[in-house]
């Protein structure tokens, strides 16, 4: 069995009801991914040649996933999504979702970006995590550089509102 120790990049995931399939880049090799619901709170995830059973649970603001004795926990973090909840017409910060190292900055101040463009790539838990533009807009500030160690919620990129005319 492959035990990947190098960054993982998720490529495409296609969802079909409770199941999903797609590909993930592990150690530079494309591998298939399959997600299958087993019962109300259990999923089977096939990842490359490995099979995992994941038990999920949900609290008000927390999503939990258990796999192989390890529990992972996601909290609702509005600021992470790129300021979708901040007032329209201002600028919003793209923030670090977890403690991470910045491996690449893909944009420069003043640059126009489209929704889904990668702004910054982080590495955390030995996984590669691209932070993407939540909307069209213009980069007003870059607050990080490759190699930086960043804390959760640290602002990395500031983006002006996509609705503002680009004058």
């Amino acid at each position, binding site marked *: 069995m492959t*035990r*990947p*120790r190098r*960054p*993982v990049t*998720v*490529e495409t*995931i*296609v*969802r*079909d*009801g*409770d*199941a*999903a399939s797609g590909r993930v880049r*592990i150690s530079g090799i494309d591998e298939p*991914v399959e*997600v299958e*619901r087993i019962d109300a709170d259990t*999923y089977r*995830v096939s*990842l*490359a040649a490995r099979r*995992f059973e*994941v*038990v*999920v*649970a*949900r*609290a008000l603001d927390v*999503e*939990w*996933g*258990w*796999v*192989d*004795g*390890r*529990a*992972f*926990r*996601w*909290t*609702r*973090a*509005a600021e*992470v*999504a*790129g300021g*979708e909840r901040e007032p329209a017409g201002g600028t919003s910060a793209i923030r670090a*979702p*977890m403690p991470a190292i910045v491996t690449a900055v893909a944009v420069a101040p003043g640059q126009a970006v489209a929704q889904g463009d990668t702004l910054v790539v982080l590495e*955390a*838990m*030995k*996984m590669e*995590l*691209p932070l*993407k533009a939540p909307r069209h807009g213009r980069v007003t500030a870059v607050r990080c550089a490759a190699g930086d160690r960043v804390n*959760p919620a640290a602002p990395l990129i500031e983006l002006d509102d996509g609705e503002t005319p680009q004058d």
Partner: protein
Amino acid sequence: MAAPIRRLLVANRGEIALRIIRACRELGIESVAVCSTADVRAPHVRAADRAVTIGPPHPRDSYLNAGAIIDAARGTGAGAIHPGYGFLSEDPDMAAACAGAGLVWVGPPADVIARLGSKIEARRLMRGAGVPIVPGETPADQTGVGLAAAAERVGYPLLLKASAGGGGRGMRTVRAPGRLRQAISEARREAESAFGNGTLYVERQLIRPRHVEVQIMADDTGRVVHLHERDCSIQRRHQKVVEESPAPGLTPAVRARLTAAAVSAARAAGYRNAGTVEFLVEGAGDAADIAFLEMNTRLQVEHPVTELVTGRDLVHAQLAVAGGGALPWSQDEIAVRGHAIECRVYAERPAEGFLPDAGTLLRYREPAGPGIRVDAGVVEGGVVSPAYDALLAKLVVHGETRGRALARARAALARYVVLGVRTNLGLLSRILGHPRVAAGPVDTGFLETTLDDLLAEGGEDPALALAAALAVDARLSPRAPEAGPSAPDAVRDPWSTLGGWRLA
């Protein structure tokens, strides 16, 4: 003369209360639980034959409220009280109050608890009984010359301690004679300011000691047996995390010295019921030094490892002895077979300074099967309250050899599902998988010195986090493809779908 216990009040909560209540059920003893108002639906309350709410959530108002507990025993007609561990279990006043109220205390008499609870008294008692203690003295000549002479007798490295106090004030580590003079003046100044008394005590500092303890059991006639030793060296800030029996790598001679010392200690103290004599062990081979540390006058958290290797039930024996019965076993009927390991499962955040965690147990599924015992105090759907100890359960395994027990424990940890509160399950697995643990004995500094590495190791396998993210993502997503126009063929990744959520 005490009579067999017919109805027992369990003055505790969590796993130990459940464990005692279940023993009662097996022995035909009626059980009475007590609880705070936060615990009225707790598992121990649900398991007992009867339950009494004794006060508000704060322990001082309920589980530490001796008067309310004794009133509850009287009100329910219970004839005996089992204190478990923690709370009032080592409070001599509680034991005395029980005796005063005509209740059987499942533990040693109040004066024995008091004597062993004082470290100075206990040291004096042990020295008298010929039990090795950590070398040290309070020289009559308190000048620099007198202390230096004492230091030479005790040996370096040493600890200078304020004779009058504790808590680390007036304490200095001295690694070599050249550092003594400076340390004396600092320690004396602190001791005088803290305790109004500059008298100093010189104690040898043990080098990478192991924590090894001996379980003993005594009846009313003064008969004492030991149930061999446990190694509890895997600690964090003096809190035990993993315990095992037998202690790895002890020679038969050292093991014999430990158990003989423990029995002598218990005899010297006039001990009754279950107790544990804790030692530090320094060095290896037959030449290893053993030194008395303290005696715990109650059932220990880690008693199950002793039960698994000896095949004896300590709570059954405690209840028999407290009811005036003779010890159920002679010394030669108590043998160790195989190897047992206990992992304490805590609701805590190891990566955040071991902050205790609290919340609802959304999923809670214990491993089961050959050689696996789980003593838990929680159930799925239950609430882990910040008001109490964060111990959720103890996973205890038995194997034919230490290696088999380690492998079994790791396999069981990997099947232990806890969601809703963060736990140390992952850390426990990494501790057991550490090469030094696999190799044999470690010292009490092991966990502190390897903790950073062990915590960093947490992210070693990104596929686990990715698998979890993919499953959570699947659940968060619309259940049918037609629910969202862009769902099929969309380019997505679980991190961006979880973009509004933060791994934490």
